[in-house]
């Protein structure tokens, strides 16, 4: 049994990542935190609107969007190359800005399409929202798989890579440079921008988001277009999912849309505090997950999710309002106050 659990080397697991190997693990932590924070913040609204699984759906159904974008960008580069007489076999260009942009747009459109399809199915038929989500994302995902396998020679993309991107490689990604100064790996920069914008949008449009989530009727009556807010949120969700995706894979994204918000709502009933606690959860699960991954020498994203779930369980046990422990204590207190013995014996005696 003992050989199944790796030794707990304090120095290597807890100290080294923050000292000697900081140049590697620092970026991994930062990337993990940024993904968890962006997803956690947006996820709060999904939970409140009872659309937690829409995030899951979007992260699966961007696949066909990515595939089509890839094909389009490919065709475009080929034409350009043919026009300029460049032999792509000799000079494999193309993984430049145009590809990044095409993929981003493809995923964004796929994300919005997913939301639209879900909405149309469940408002225009008797199929409920959960079933509509199931239909939509499985169909689009399958469509993506078909596309990729048909055009396997043209699309440098496989479903596995999209779903299980590896956060551990973030520090060896090309760095974003300003002049000669190497700032940070470009996925970190991109995710940082997205996370920062997410926070900004949530602060700026706090009241619009709050009222349209709580009472869309009231929001509409105040001139806040609840439908527009809904689609804007979904668009932004697609942006978050896509930017996180390539670097960390879908597992972390899907889990972190729900876990921070769910954990925070265990601990407080004030929405601003829920938002702050979900950020805290994001930070804690990325730190704990990182150490767990080093210790077990395993998937970092997976460990971050496991750590996040662990924090959720702890919150569940100790939550002041819904916690297992406080509830048990309260019940024990109550049973002491009641003269339980007498009632019990009387009934037994009568029967």
């Amino acid at each position, binding site marked *: 049994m003992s050989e199944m659990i790796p030794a707990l080397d304090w120095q290597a697991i807890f100290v080294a990542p923050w000292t000697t190997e900081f140049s590697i693990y620092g970026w991994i932590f930062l990337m993990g935190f940024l993904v968890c924070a962006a997803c956690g913040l947006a996820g709060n609204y999904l939970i*409140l609107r*009872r659309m937690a699984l829409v995030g899951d759906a979007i992260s699966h159904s961007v696949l066909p969007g990515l595939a089509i974008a890839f094909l389009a960008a490919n065709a475009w580069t080929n034409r350009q190359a043919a026009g300029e007489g460049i032999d792509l076999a000799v000079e494999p260009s193309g993984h430049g800005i145009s590809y990044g942009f095409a993929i981003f747009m493809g995923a964004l459109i796929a994300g919005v399409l997913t939301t639209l399809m879900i909405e*149309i199915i469940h408002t*225009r038929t008797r199929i409920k929202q959960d079933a509509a989500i199931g239909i939509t994302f499985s169909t689009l995902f399958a469509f993506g798989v078909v596309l990729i396998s048909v055009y396997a020679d043209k699309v440098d993309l496989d479903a596995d890579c999209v779903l299980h991107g590896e956060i551990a490689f973030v520090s060896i990604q090309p760095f974003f440079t300003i002049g000669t100064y190497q700032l940070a790996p470009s996925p970190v920069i991109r995710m940082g921008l997205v996370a920062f914008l997410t926070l900004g949008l949530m602060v*700026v449009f*706090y*009241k*619009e988001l*709050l*009222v349209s*989530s*709580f*009472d869309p*009727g*009231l929001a*509409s*009556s*105040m*001139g*806040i277009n609840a439908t527009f807010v809904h689609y804007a949120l979904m668009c932004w969700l697609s942006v978050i999912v896509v930017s996180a995706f390539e670097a960390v894979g879908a597992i972390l994204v899907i889990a972190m849309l729900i876990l921070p918000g769910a954990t925070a*709502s265990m601990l*407080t*009933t*004030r*929405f601003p505090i*829920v938002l702050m606690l979900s950020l805290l959860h994001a930070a804690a699960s990325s730190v704990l997950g990182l150490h767990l991954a080093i210790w077990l020498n395993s998937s970092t994203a997976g460990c971050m999710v496991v750590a996040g779930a662990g924090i959720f369980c702890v919150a569940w046990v100790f939550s002041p309002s819904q916690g297992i422990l406080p509830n048990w204590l309260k019940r024990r207190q109550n049973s002491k106050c009641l003269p339980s013995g007498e009632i019990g014996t009387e009934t037994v005696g009568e029967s």
Partner: protein
Amino acid sequence: MLLCGLEQLNNMLHPSFMAQEKDKIPRIETTPPPANRWTKGLAVEDIPLEIHDLTVAYHHKPVLYGIDLAVPPGKLIGIIGPNGAGKSTLIKAIMGLLPTDSGWVQIFGKNNRKNLKRVGYVPQRESVDWDFPVSVMDVVLMGRYGKLGLFKRPGKEDRDIASACLEKVKMMPYADRQIANLSGGQQQRVFLARALAQESDLYFMDEPFAGVDAATESSIIGLLHELRQKGKTILVVHHDLPTARNYFDMLVLLNMRLVDFGPTEEVFTYEKLQKTYGGRLTILSEVAEAVRQNKG
């Protein structure tokens, strides 16, 4: 949006379908009085609500058909009719929350969607998720959002107004409570406080008395009378016939079509209520009872 347009096109191409559905609407043999009977001589911008030929359909089935209504200011008005008569639909259509198939709605002389800032709204209590992580105060402050612009936060003045509104419904001691920990009557009073905080001139309330105790009901009706005294116009969807007579100045009798609209004493008659409720025996006996009580 594209699909919505296609559906409308579809309707236009197949008018026979609508006509066929139209026949299913109860035929009510009254010659409707001119819509502007109670608003004659008023300037257009003084008429809180004017509806012309409003038709609303769900999935090709008309729910409201050809409603013509003009409401005078400073009245407490009940909207009554049987289940499925389109009472809530009428309010939602007026508020622009539903697509309409024909007709127009004006609020204080302007297109309804452009003048919603003058409207306060109390939705049905079940329409929101009461587990939402907000406090009573937060909900009442939402009533102020319409008055604030984009990007602006509720300030001290808004908080003072919200506190005053909570005080009015006697919910100030609960200001910091999470809304999940409230009873049905308390939830209804929070919604009322929120509507008060909107400081509107025209109010729509969807069954504010559903599931509240007698004490809350009478305190709510007291508040509504107070609002009316200040010249506000209030339309209330109401379910309980016996109390309707005592609560409201005017009544809208609705059963997919407008049966009648007028002062309560003129409209609350056995004959007109029978027209509204059709041949539903249990309700008819209730109506008879209510009318008898009024005579006595």
